[in-house]
């Protein structure tokens, strides 16, 4: 029987990991991820979870260790945050290039300097091109559910790409909320066994020696990278399958890489990711009650980036109103340019412009907020929609600043 609990995001992740039965766990504690590691070590100690828990001296070693374990053909887990993710950066590319089906939780936290332990999304955005699938949870429940689904996606033999499950530091990792913890039997039936099947690609053992993690010269290297990219793009389909199957069995969750909310007839659309989507939903309901046609697109997966889904949701034939302005709300900045998510969204819009020219595209505004744990209030989100309404009414002659640091720069 599944049970209703009152858990933090970190505890929900630990429960999701326990239910997925990894054989090897290696992690180095760092705020705000620490509770995940603590809970898992307790579970291993009490034999609630039959796993090898390895204390390592650094995040770099943690990821290297689970990579080696996966090469032996077993399910693994690790978790990190912020500086820890940066410290293991080299291993992120190594593991994705080696096509090891790893699952890692990241507590999204700011990057030093200045030193700051609070939440923002600078850490995972900085490693968007590391070859890992990236998913962002909105709630503790979705965090638990995504850990389980991440194993099904990563280990799919067509995918064999590691998955990074992101939770907003503190706002999600440290907030307690209702979480349904599934029963073990249902999860066992949903996931393949934690020991990979004999002959699973990218594994070896004493009876089946293989050369793994190879070198490749200029001729072969490009081919490896092409296949890595091709399979990551194609992973969207297994991701939808796994999400759909999860929803069928567990009765919740989304199969979509982008989740729309009151968006089909919205003229002003906010695009965001992670837990701030909840507050945006509340604001949208309030503004809708006042007659404003506003909506939300919550990006769940930043890799593979769901360009076609985005274009269909913004411009597709099923829309009941044209989108007049788009906002992108994110907790990071690519210094000297724009927010990392805005760059992603705009790249997809350019493809749309090619397809829909000369109709043109609606104005886009990029809102940078929540850096280093800065609270994002309902009032600030209402002001962002005000900005979008003004952008929609603009005649196009007046130059507009497309990036705004919320709380630091006035709108215009």
């Amino acid at each position, binding site marked *: 029987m599944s049970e*209703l*609990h*009152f858990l933090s995001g970190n505890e929900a992740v630990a429960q999701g990991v326990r239910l997925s039965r990894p054989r090897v766990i290696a992690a180095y504690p760092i*705020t*705000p991820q620490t509770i995940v590691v603590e809970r898992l070590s307790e579970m291993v100690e009490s034999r609630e979870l039959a796993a090898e828990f390895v204390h390592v001296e650094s995040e770099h070693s943690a990821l290297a260790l689970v990579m080696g374990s996966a090469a032996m053909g077993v399910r693994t887990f690790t978790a990190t945050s912020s500086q820890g993710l940066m410290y293991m950066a080299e291993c992120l590319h190594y593991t994705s290039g080696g096509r090891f089906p790893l699952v890692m939780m990241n507590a999204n936290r700011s990057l030093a300097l200045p030193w700051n*332990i*609070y*939440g923002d999304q600078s850490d995972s955005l900085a490693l968007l091109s590391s070859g890992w699938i990236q998913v962002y949870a909105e709630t503790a429940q979705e965090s638990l559910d995504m850990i389980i689904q991440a194993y099904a996606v990563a280990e799919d033999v067509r995918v064999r790409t590691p998955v990074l499950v992101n939770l907003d530091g*503190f*706002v*999600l990792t*440290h*907030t*307690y*909320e*209702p979480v349904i913890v599934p029963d073990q039997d249902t999860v066992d039936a949903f996931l393949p066994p934690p020991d990979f099947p004999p002959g699973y690609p990218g594994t070896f053992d004493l009876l089946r020696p293989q050369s793994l993690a190879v070198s490749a010269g200029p001729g072969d290297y490009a081919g490896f990278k092409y296949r890595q990219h091709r399979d990551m793009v194609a992973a969207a389909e297994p991701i939808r399958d796994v999400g759909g199957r999860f929803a069928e069995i567990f009765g919740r969750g989304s199969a979509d890489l982008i989740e729309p909310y009151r968006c089909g007839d919205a003229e002003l659309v906010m695009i965001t990711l992670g*837990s*701030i989507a*909840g*507050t945006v*939903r*509340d604001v949208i309901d309030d503004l809708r009650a006042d007659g404003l046609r506003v909506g939300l697109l919550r990006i769940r997966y930043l890799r593979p980036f769901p360009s076609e889904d985005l274009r269909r949701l913004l411009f597709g034939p099923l829309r009941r109103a044209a989108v007049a302005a788009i906002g992108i709300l994110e907790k990071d900045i690519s210094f000297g340019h724009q927010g990392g998510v805005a760059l992603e969204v705009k790249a997809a819009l350019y493809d749309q412009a090619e397809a829909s020219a000369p109709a043109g595209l609606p104005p886009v505004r990029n809102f940078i907020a929540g850096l280093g*744990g800065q*609270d*994002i*209030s*309902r009032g600030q989100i209402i002001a962002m929609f005000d900005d979008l309404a003004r952008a929609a009414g603009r005649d196009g002659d007046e130059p507009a600043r497309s990036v705004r640091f919320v709380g630091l720069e006035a709108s215009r």
Partner: protein
Amino acid sequence: MPTTMHETVWLGRGGQGAFTAARLLGLAAVRFAGKQALAFPSFGPERRGAPVFAYTRIADRPIRDRSAVRRADVAVVMDESLLDQVSTDFLVAESLVIIDAEAGPTDAGSGERFFRVPARKIARDILGSDHTNTVLLGVFIGLTGLLPIDAVTAGIVAEFGQGAKGGKNVAAFRCGWEVGRASSETGDAARRYGHG
């Protein structure tokens, strides 16, 4: 639809159990009263003795707003000296403020929004410690009727277990509840803040 969100701010010092109280209230609401809740601490490093804020949001519908609490329906102050030391912008004219104080209980019937209760004395008598969180949770529930007493009792047992620790904390909670309940019967606190 009028908003039915109830927001509580717990104010204490590291080690006093402010966040445990915030979490207990949410746990009782979710697991034993069929309600929705969020509980979260003031984010950051944890240090014994440093000011700690903790928050509980309770509603009948799923709670999606994760922004900071800007307006407390109830504030529980576990160390009165903190009121002069930290920002209390979340206190508004309608806030009920429950304060651990040597003197008390004060009479909520006077319309006074500050309710003083000797929680530490009660905690020492019943728990043999200075942990006032279950006592103050009892005062809070007694005054407001926000959750059924049985739901919170079940939450305390779920948290502290069936043994001596659970039993003592249930007793501390019930003692606080009696104090709050007695005052709410003479006053309007229950009408003003109650949802029960």
